[in-house]
């Protein structure tokens, strides 16, 4: 079976007139950034665009691959021809060769998003001088002579600094990490490489999903461009049916499990050793159910796969976690769920914690701290009950549910407290 590689050692790949791929392939990579597995490596896609008045370099590569990058770049232009260096995203896998490129092309103008300068300064400390740069946003462009690069601000995809660059005359979108994936194939083009659909979805789920509201905002801008080719910073170059990949992103980022209308949702998760925390959970849910326009769901985490709850949590408005205290800690199924929540955005959701305990009862405070760390709102102090909850304790659980429900539905009474009363 033939496998015609598009990539040759030390040679750039021409993508269109005056547009070259000058990146690097990393087929040995198996785990990226600690959290991402890849079955066949990744690529660091960098590009060069030549105009009548000079060359733009768009992104660089991970530092270990700088030699390959410079070898390809030198086939395309001299360093004194480089007029602009565009950085769509400053993470080290795309900016690793930047300090050396700045040394070799000292007259090139550095163009990056308005949120990027603080990261830039940290990246190029080794140069020993304050870098000059031009921050850009929507509507800004660079004229290369006969062709222009325009910029599209797409923050939080997946860092605050991320942007896309648009080559107008070719309708080519240099998209940074957006529409990328960790899939290494030296045939480069999406209509020639192996099947990478699983990598595309996997990358979205692990990198973009926590920022899905920003994904939707970015798609509103990018779809109007109707690109002929999408050139991401990782993985295959998307020349065949590029809009399908935008449509896939839109589908992945669109909520599917909305409760509908103005109804709010509260998910109550618990683990119980002797049934006490379970009784508290049921009482909290009962209280919350008394609040109109609130849909309450109760889940025992004991025998559950926490992964299945992540989708529900992404759509929910409020979360309550119940855990007994074992050895001065919350129990593992609760931590497993709480540690899974970096995959989705829970910022701003309302949360509460509760649990029965025997001796010290640290679990509730620890869960509250974790929720705050996840940038949730925890407006009601958690509830701890020593061993068996009494009817009074269960009524306090119902009250906690009602109060949490009131916050969720925007009906909470305004209150005034002294800071000394707060734990």
């Amino acid at each position, binding site marked *: 079976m033939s496998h015609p590689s598009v990539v040759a050692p030390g040679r750039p790949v021409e993508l269109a007139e005056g547009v070259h791929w000058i990146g690097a392939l990393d087929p040995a990579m198996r785990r990226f950034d600690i959290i991402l597995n890849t079955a066949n490596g990744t690529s660091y896609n960098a590009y060069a665009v030549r105009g009548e008045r000079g060359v733009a370099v768009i992104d660089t590569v991970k530092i270990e691959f700088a030699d390959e990058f410079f070898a390809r770049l030198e086939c395309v232009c001299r360093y004194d021809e480089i007029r602009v260096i565009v950085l769509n995203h400053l993470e080290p896998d795309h900016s690793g060769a930047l300090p050396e490129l700045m040394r070799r092309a000292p007259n090139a103008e550095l163009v990056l998003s308005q*949120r990027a300068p603080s990261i830039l300064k940290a990246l190029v400390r080794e140069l020993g001088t304050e870098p000059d740069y031009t921050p850009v946003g929507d509507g800004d462009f660079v004229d290369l002579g006969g062709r222009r690069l325009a910029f599209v601000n797409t923050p939080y995809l997946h860092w605050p600094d991320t942007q896309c660059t648009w080559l107008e005359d070719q309708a080519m979108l240099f998209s940074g990490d957006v529409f990328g994936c960790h899939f290494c194939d030296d045939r480069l083009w999406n209509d020639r490489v192996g099947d990478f659909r699983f990598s595309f979805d996997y990358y979205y789920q692990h990198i973009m999903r926590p920022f899905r509201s920003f994904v939707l905002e970015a798609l509103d801008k990018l779809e109007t461009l109707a690109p002929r080719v999408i050139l991401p910073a990782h993985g295959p170059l998307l020349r065949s049916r590029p809009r399908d990949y935008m449509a896939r992103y839109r589908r992945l980022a669109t909520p599917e499990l909305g409760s509908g209308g103005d109804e709010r949702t509260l998910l109550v998760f618990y683990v119980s050793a002797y049934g006490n925390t379970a009784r508290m959970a049921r009482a909290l849910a009962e209280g919350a159910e008394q609040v109109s326009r609130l849909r309450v769901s109760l889940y025992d985490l004991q025998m559950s796969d926490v992964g299945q709850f992540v989708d529900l949590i992404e759509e929910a408005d409020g979360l309550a976690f119940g855990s007994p205290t074992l050895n001065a800690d919350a129990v593992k199924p609760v931590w497993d769920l709480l540690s899974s929540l970096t995959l989705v955005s829970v*910022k*701003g959701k309302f949360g509460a914690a509760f649990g029965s305990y025997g001796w010290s009862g640290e679990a509730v405070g620890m869960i509250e701290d974790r929720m705050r760390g996840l940038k949730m*709102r925890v407006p009601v102090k958690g509830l701890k009950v020593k061993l068996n909850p009494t009817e009074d304790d269960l009524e306090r659980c119902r009250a906690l549910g009602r109060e949490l429900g009131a*916050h969720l539905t925007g009906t909470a*009474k305004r209150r005034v*407290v002294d800071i000394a009363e*707060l*734990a």
Partner: protein
Amino acid sequence: MPKASVTFEDIGVTVTVPAGTRLIEVSEKVGAGITYGCREGECGTCMMKIVAGSENLAQPSVLEHQVLSDNLAPRAARLACQAQVLGGEIVVRPG
């Protein structure tokens, strides 16, 4: 010690605090939606909107000015980890 009141609009809670308190300390304790990252005025995570009473906060430091500027912050924005209460009434909400 002089007291001030800080109202967190997003959860409808007003907290009475001693002068000198930083807003992030209050937000954390009351469970409001103003969240923090580095707590050192560098990352901008705790940016919030001062709805009323900005004159009752200590003036932003050079560092805070720079971070607000880097983050394209609107005029009413402050960093909760840097903004210190002087007195009076202040109304805030997550930025």
